[in-house]
């Protein structure tokens, strides 16, 4: 996973709430067994509408998605994160996220940023007025900046550290293999096995 410290790019306003992962990437796209090529499926149903914001040439190349509340609800498909990243997004900003999506994002280095609803709307309005407006998402300083606005956001220290170092969770856990083995020796005797 690539380290994420700070990122400056342009942003796309997605003025919809409850953007569930079935919209981010519909089920037909989940049949692939590889990890690549999902950008084609990103919002594929909505992208058929020429008026959809991602089809607006003014927003081409944007790397920050600014959505209405409850982004990434529903299915646990990590393909939603892969699709967003492979399309070119590095950050999603919303007032609320689905828990599983948010978790999946931080595993992959796509930064989910929670801002208060009115700040999300202010940012959407700002990029609607000027699609070329540079927006900075500073993970180190826990702040989103655009024009003369600077809005702080919360993220726990551990996740922030992991993202800034670009660390793989599995490698971190394997350092504690002894603890896992010790726990396994103490498990209740009636717990089932699948064999």
């Amino acid at each position, binding site marked *: 996973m690539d380290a994420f410290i700070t990122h400056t790019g342009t942003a796309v306003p997605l*003025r*919809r*709430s*409850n953007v*569930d992962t*079935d*919209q981010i990437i*519909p*089920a*037909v796209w*989940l*049949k*692939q*067994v*590889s*990890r690549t090529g999902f950008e084609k499926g990103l919002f594929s*149903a909505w992208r058929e509408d020429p008026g959809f914001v991602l089809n607006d040439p003014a927003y081409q190349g944007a790397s920050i998605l600014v959505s*209405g*509340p*409850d982004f990434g*609800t*529903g*299915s*646990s*498909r*990590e*393909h939603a*994160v892969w699709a967003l990243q492979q399309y070119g997004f590095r950050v999603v900003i919303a007032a*609320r*996220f*689905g*828990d*599983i999506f948010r*978790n*999946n994002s931080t*595993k*992959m280095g796509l930064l989910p940023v929670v801002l208060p*609803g009115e700040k999300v709307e202010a940012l959407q309005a700002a990029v609607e007025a000027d699609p070329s407006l540079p927006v900075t998402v500073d993970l180190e300083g826990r702040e989103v900046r655009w024009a003369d606005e600077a809005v702080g956001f919360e993220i726990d*220290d*551990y996740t922030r550290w992991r993202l800034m170092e670009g660390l793989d*969770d*599995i490698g*971190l*856990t*394997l350092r*504690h*293999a002894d*603890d*896992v083995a010790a*726990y*396994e020796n103490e*498990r*209740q*005797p*009636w*717990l*089932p*096995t*699948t*064999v």
Partner: protein
Amino acid sequence: MEQSRNEQEEIMGRTLAEKVWEQHVVRRVDGEPDLLYIDLHLIHEVTSPQAFDGLRLAGRKVRRPDLTIATEDHNVPTVLGPIADPVSKTQVETLRKNAAEFGIRLHPMGDAGQGVVHIIGPQFGLTQPGMTIVCGDSHTSTHGAFGGIAFGIGTSEVEHVLATQTLPAYRPKTMAIEVSGELPVGVTAKDLILAIIAKIGTGGGQGYIVEYRGEAVRKLSMEGRMTVCNMSIEAGARAGLIAPDETTFAYLKGRPHAPSGELWDQAVEYWKSLRTDDDAVFDKVVEIDASTLTPYVTWGTNPGQGLPLGASVPDPASFADPIERSAAERALEYMGLSAGTPLRDVEVDTVFVGSCTNGRIEDLRSAAEILRGRQVKTRTLIVPGSMLVKLQAEQEGLHEVFKAAGAEWREAGCSMCLGMNPDTLQPGERSASTSNRNFEGRQGKGGRTHLVSPQVAAATAVTGRLTAPADL
């Protein structure tokens, strides 16, 4: 620090979720997520291939294949025969290869144990009280019906569990949903959970583990409890659970993987301690009176957009919140509905009974009861959640009832719950569905979904309009 936190909780009493969580902490360090042991890992073909690839790339093994089980469900056709779509076929074959390579028990298509991943765990007795259970699937919350912590994970986490049998996670906050009173006759667990989601919204449970409590919950069968816990994620909660009791123990006893003999007695004794202490404090409490409920149906494109069947399609202007208003406008446009239309007048093209929400034997029995001696007016798919459910239904003669009514009796699978296999809606087609998601395109591109109970689904099949059994 840790010590004092635990001691304090001891004094204050603990919730069921906290007890189960604490029991599974492998490692706890200030400022880091807990490392949680996972008792059971369920796998299916869609969210696992890239995880196995990751293991191979890093030269890692599956730590506990004996705590892992796989099934084929999302892609499988529900009519006999091979998978026609080559991409689906590759995905299923990839699971077979991975299961063989890493030594994981798999129930492939055609196998007597095959079925939807959340149906097979409980049916084998693998899902037990007090366990931690994960799966690369958001409806893993289903298993919480037995009093454990069960939640959906993404593919990176699937890989993590395969490699380590653990997951780093922060303990969610706890929410109690207290359901007082009794469900009226004809009102089901599905109506209850749809009403709960309508009340707290699709984001209401975000960041929480929900414990469903109260008289109406205690009276539910295990099937009903699974239906309720299944849709916790539709309220935003990653996990939902219900304290185990005699109903739970009776369901488990004698199942292939349930403990037996002395271990059974030991287990039951422990399971009885798995309840929220009387003086425990939840971070949030929501109350709902079951006795006021009637059959529920969704009108929009998220599961929180639901109303009693006796109501009419709402007017978007009636929503005070501008975001909800515009969501309602969009939903009505997508659903092809106009404000003020009585929901009972909405005509459907297809009825689907099945899925991990309502594909268990009790669901099929209640649909059969309504279809017995009647004829369906719409295309009606009855899809058992597993091959064992199918077998049991056939032993009870339910399949004859369905066929005589003109419904289609299918093989086990996810079927029309999601548009990944041949069972889909065509653009503009409308369904009454016992599944869990009415998202745009969920059942096929352009398809329009109304979520309902099996009883309402069956009654709707008879009239061709959204109908409660009592209306027949």
